């Protein structure tokens, strides 16, 4: 994945569009989900589709910051594609009898907090922050969650769907890392000044307070389902490897911060986990009412292939 030509990438993206209607959601295979799997899978899918949706909102914010028209258009597509993933995953849930009527799966409280943060502050974040965090989320998904899912679930339709999703994700990662390197190309002291300015901003601190417990809760959920947590760590490792393979990538201070954070997350004995796990527990006590109604962008989610 050396630097890529973004114009070619945009053309490739446009030529690779697919729709829920391309898939036969009634095809046989749904019965291959075992009773024992069912409740865990339901929780897993629900997290997964919300993370896609959160990623979608992240790309929407990045589109506003994109330095060129081409990158703006790419991010506009990625925004829609993550939404497509969420929609397709809901359609799978529906197929497996995990959704009733028009209901959306319930997001866990940490996801809910993250959505809240994205809605309020993501548009104010510089491209550097989102451009470095999003690859981490994407790689965690690609590397850990999806592989796990495909190991566990035999329904052939599920494999068919994730083949399409993975093809999209490969393009996302290509652009993600290209941009991370691009962001490391500026003057070093400027990068540093801008970074410090952002790190101390209350908006970002709020974001960290939402993001850190989210990662830990996901780790807990995954472990509970039987995924080896090493899978998640391998994925984070991959972030450091690919993100740090060039000088420009390593020079991006946000890459350094997030890698450092990744190392703490991976190290179970690190003091980091004390407060963060406490936050996870604490967040269980947040009453849903305190959060108010979900933002209206969430309401665009749908499992129906046609409207």
């Amino acid at each position: 994945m050396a630097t890529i030509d973004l114009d070619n990438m945009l053309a490739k993206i446009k030529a690779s569009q697919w729709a829920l209607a391309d898939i036969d959601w009634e095809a046989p295979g749904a019965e291959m989900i075992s009773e024992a799997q069912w409740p865990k899978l339901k929780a897993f899918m629900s997290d997964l589709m919300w993370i896609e949706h959160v990623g979608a909102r992240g790309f929407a914010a990045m589109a506003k910051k994109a330095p060129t028209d081409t990158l703006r258009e790419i991010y506009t597509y990625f925004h829609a594609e993550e939404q497509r993933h969420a929609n397709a995953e809901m359609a799978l849930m529906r197929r497996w009898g995990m959704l009733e009527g028009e209901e959306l799966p319930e997001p866990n409280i940490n996801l809910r907090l993250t959505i809240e943060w994205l809605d309020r502050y993501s548009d104010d974040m510089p491209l550097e922050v989102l451009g470095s965090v999003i690859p981490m989320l994407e790689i965690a998904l690609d590397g850990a969650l999806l592989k796990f899912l495909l190991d566990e679930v035999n329904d052939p339709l599920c494999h068919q769907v994730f083949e399409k999703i993975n093809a999209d994700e490969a393009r996302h990662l290509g652009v993600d890392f290209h941009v991370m390197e691009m962001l490391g190309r500026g003057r070093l002291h400027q990068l540093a000044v801008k970074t410090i300015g952002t790190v101390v901003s209350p908006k970002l601190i709020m974001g960290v307070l939402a993001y850190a417990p989210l990662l830990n809760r996901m780790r807990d959920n995954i472990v509970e389902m039987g995924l080896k947590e090493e899978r998640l760590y391998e994925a984070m490792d991959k972030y450091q490897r690919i993100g740090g393979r060039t000088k420009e990538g390593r020079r991006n201070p946000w890459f350094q911060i997030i890698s450092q954070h990744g190392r703490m997350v991976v190290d179970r004995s690190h003091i980091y986990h004390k407060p963060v796990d406490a936050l996870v527990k604490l967040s269980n006590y947040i009453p849903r009412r305190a959060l108010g109604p979900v933002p209206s962008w969430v309401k665009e989610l749908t499992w129906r292939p046609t409207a």
Partner: protein
Amino acid sequence: MTIPTMKSGARKATPRQAPATNKPHDVLIVGAGFAGLGAALRLQQEGVGDLVILERADDVGGTWRDNSYPGAACDIPSNLYSFSFAPNPDWSRSFAGSREILDYVHHLADHYNLRQLVRFGRDVSHLRYDDKTGLWTAVTQTGETFQARSVVMAQGPLSNASFPDIPGLDEFKGHKIHSARWDHDYDFNRKRVAVIGTGASGVQIVPELVKKVDKLTVFQRTPGWVMPRPDFATPQWNKLLFRRVPKAQESVRRALYLAHESMALGIIWNSPLTGLLERVSEAHLNHQVKDAWMRRQLKPDFRIGCKRVLMSSDYYPALQRDNCRLITWPIARLCENGIRTAEGIEHQFDCIVFATGFDVSNNGTPFKVTGSKGRDLDTDWKRGAQAYKSINVAGYPNLFITFGPNSGPGHNSALVYMESQIEYLVKAVKMMTSEGIKSLDVRKDVQRRHNHDIQKRLAKTNWNSGCKSWYLTEDGFNATMFPGFASQYARQMEGFDPGDYRVVRVAGRPQ
């Protein structure tokens, strides 16, 4: 994929009479819109009598004959969107609808006896200059030919409706309508309808269509800046006043003109006024749209003026009606039953309305134009169209273009610009007929100097501030807009200096 283009009301005309009468006309005009009729009218008034107008459709009116979609209207006040030499005291509204503007054009055509000059159903496909005789020949689709000493290309800047370059355009089995070729027989009652495009036409169609259909879905790629439009009916006393005291209407026109001129400060250049206009538009958005996400979807992210400013007070409310939905996902393709967008959903419709604009030839010509020594205008313009004062092109003697390169108004009535062009060409043609001039060809160096200056001034404008629009060619060359006030344009067009031209007189005529 080629983008299909629809020509206005073009119909196959069988050649009726014998081609090319023996005597060439003084002036041949292509197009019977405002520009073509206005030119004919003024030429006649100045005593140039031998004219012919070729029009491909079967009526006069151009833009206002073709754009009859619900809600079609002018977004320049009617008192300014009319010829100063033919005022209309009876405008029923501050911003007249398309039908009323067409009536005004009909009035011009009838009152000044212009229809008899028009040959309808003549779709010009080639203009050819002959160096030996100094005459132009116009060839129509059917092979009919017409000859004249001078030609006015008044085929309109926005007359070829275009469909967007979307995969699967032909797969859709439902009804397709282009805003500029409205289908008045289609019954929208109880239909699920899509509108693609949210430019000048889109924002006018949506508020009307939403009242008629069962479900309306609006597909937006780029949101534009929207300004409130103070549209009201003209009170009766006002009409009476204008009829009895024409001076009163003149001064209202003058005031409107100046108001629009002052807008130029904010729209053409990045000035404190630019920020102010953006804030007015933003306040309009925030006032009319409640939902934060929808506001975000509708908020433009380019500088105001870089694209045409939209005028509407009922567009935002229409989008929020229960039966309306705004979609900002990119369109992936059209399919049998509707539109598939990139979020993976197929949106199904009975009818798709394309409010997607026009083919703008800013680096080419709409039909073949062959000039002196066989040169081809399309080739000469490949890298961006250039002309002298927007109206003449070196190497194409006796050819006058309305809305030629760098004549576009971004902030004021097109007719104000058009009048300057018409007066300029009238002066030139009058000189040609009275002095027996065979060819009048603008000097290359004069044209070069003019364009150098124009591009230098354009570099400082909002249009060239980095957003894509139909004003610019693919490589960002601005061959469309005039970088200045309408009054500066008027001044540019005021002086016709024969010294700028190479003049050849008909042999045997004294100097």
